[in-house]
């Protein structure tokens, strides 16, 4: 095992982490500001990927597809908020879970109805295809480096939005005391729609960017959704900073665990048992991490207890 392999794996973990952040950011905003558990967040990720694949196939341009994914996911988010989610703020979490679970089924079967059961084709844009050589001789796919860049840029943009703009002030105020900002004359329902659409657009962006690397198919959002929940629990619910740190922590733990654990077991077990046990333990690792963090800080890393 060389240092180069370790650095490459760390980059992989970072890339995985920033993509998880795009998902988790929307989820944590919606939960923090509106107190809503949105299981259908993964469906918005799928909407982004399908919109990008559909437009890219029709026009031949990945970048138009990317723009379409942002627009489609934000529009889907806004429509869902106006028609369904709005009625759920006053209800308890169980009702929210039930209703948003129903939305998953509606989105999945609706997408199947529109696009069919077969996975769609979406490829990396030609300008970003293939590996480049990094200092130190590491060959690394250019597209993944660009993903890291986009993810970090979006994170910076979100910090600026929340920390330095009027909308950000309202979002923070909404998190702290929603009755009070409504009493101060802020149109709270419009704010909610904007926040929900913003979260949806981020999920759609993640879906489109990751869709170029994976299979664009119905149900692709749910596995990511579970990880995004782990991320926001680790980071502290409602905290964008927590979502970023949590996402990178989960990305690195998962990627390095999958690679290092089987190797570690290999030092004292026969290879086939080591890979099998190592792989099983690696898939539990992020949940072990979550449990450990909750023991030490029950509110998550940056959450209020």
């Amino acid at each position: 095992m060389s240092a180069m392999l370790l650095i490459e794996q760390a980059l992989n973990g970072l890339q995985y982490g920033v993509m998880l952040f795009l998902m988790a950011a929307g989820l944590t905003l919606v939960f923090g500001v509106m107190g809503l558990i949105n299981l259908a967040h993964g469906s918005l990720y799928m909407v982004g990927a399908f919109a990008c694949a559909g437009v890219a196939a029709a026009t031949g341009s990945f970048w138009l597809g990317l723009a379409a994914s942002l627009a489609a996911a934000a529009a889907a988010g806004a429509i869902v908020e106006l028609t369904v989610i709005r009625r759920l703020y006053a209800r308890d979490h169980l009702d929210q879970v039930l209703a948003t679970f129903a939305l998953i089924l509606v989105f999945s079967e609706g997408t199947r109805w529109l696009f069919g059961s077969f996975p769609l084709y979406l490829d990396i844009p030609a300008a970003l295809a293939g590996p480049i050589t990094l200092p130190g001789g590491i060959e690394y796919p250019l597209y993944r480096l660009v993903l890291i860049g986009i993810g970090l840029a979006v994170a910076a943009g979100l910090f600026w939005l929340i920390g330095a703009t009027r909308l950000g002030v309202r979002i923070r105020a909404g998190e702290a005391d929603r009755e009070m900002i409504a009493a101060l004359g802020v149109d709270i329902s419009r704010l909610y729609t904007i926040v929900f659409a913003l979260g949806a657009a981020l999920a759609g962006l993640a879906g489109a960017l990751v869709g170029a690397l994976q299979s664009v198919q119905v149900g692709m959002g749910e596995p990511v959704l579970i990880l995004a929940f782990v991320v926001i629990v680790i980071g502290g619910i409602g905290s964008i900073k927590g979502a970023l740190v949590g996402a990178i922590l989960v990305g690195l733990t998962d990627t390095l665990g999958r690679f290092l654990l089987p190797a570690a077991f290999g030092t004292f077990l026969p290879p086939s048992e080591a890979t099998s046990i190592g792989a099983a333990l690696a898939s539990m690792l992020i949940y072990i991490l979550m449990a450990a963090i909750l023991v030490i800080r029950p509110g998550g890393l940056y959450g209020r207890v």
Partner: protein
Amino acid sequence: MNATKTLLAAAAALVTAGAALAEPVKVGMITTLSGGGASLGLDTRDGFMLAVKQANNPDLEVVIEDDQRKPDIAVQLADKMIQSDKVDVLTGIVWSNLAMAVVPAATAQGKFYLSTNAAPSALAGKGCNPNYFSVSYQNDNLHEAAGAYAATAGITKAFIMAPNYPAGKDSLTGFKRFYEGEVVGEVYTKLGQTDYAGEIAQIRASGADGVFIFLPGGMGISFVKQYADSGVGLPLIGPAFSFDQSIIQAMGDSALGVLNGANWSPDLDNAANATFVETFSAEYGRLPSVYASYGYDTANLLLSAMAKASVADADAFRAALKEADFDSVRGKFAFGPSNHPVQDLYVREVVRDGDILTNRIVGTAMEDRGNAYEGECKM
């Protein structure tokens, strides 16, 4: 076109000849028509129903239900079909875990089960049953084909990878059974994993000269796209499940040149196959997959048995099934002692044909390969 007419005429002749014996046969098809794995079930159903439509036999009735890829639903459907629909034959299950939930109970109640895909080792060895026929293969076969051919393809130091679940472990065992080279890396991934950057980095560092993967469905699409983009460029081989007609379109040019072990291919040269590929494409507007070919063969096997024996006489019907007296799209087809096929296994390569990607046969991996668990089957 002439071949089509001849076959249709032959099918019609069979039907007429069988009419004297005919006892209506009711078939229950349980397959996956919604959810993530729906494309496999849809192909199975369409292949099966194409053969039923071509035979136009009024004595054959088919009930089709969607198992949603859930074992509990598959069991409920099987119970309903056996008890209220009074089916004689069950078929159609795609997934091994669903087959394990349904098949032993169905055969114990004296029903026939014809497998269009799943054929787990547990039903091929100790759990074999005279009423259970696998028309497709035994689960290990396509992995064995890849393993037997890998050395021929110049893969002497293989990096092998599969998801960490029973079929994944069977896959790597099947690959190693006839592989003559060295295994330099063996990795089990998480079931449903979508990002393989970590594994690809390990492949790059392993010193391997080829890669074997069993990553069915979306997992394979993700891996192949990421692998092509990584620039590792070592030859890739796997079973047909990972590189089948419905899947390779979503991989795009990343899949070109990938080798895969199979027992059927659209370019397999025989009259029945030419008819099948032509009529399937005309009927459904897409090329058939291996799953469609298994569905088609299963229906034709059933029709051949109906022409020879009445389903009311279970022993005679079983013997008629075992004769496998039908024109398989695989050309050669016979059942071994454990009711699993003895057949030639090929290696195919993904190629571009005009606008679409498809598979072409590049070589024969094994001839007359049967079931590895034959010895454990006592019946």
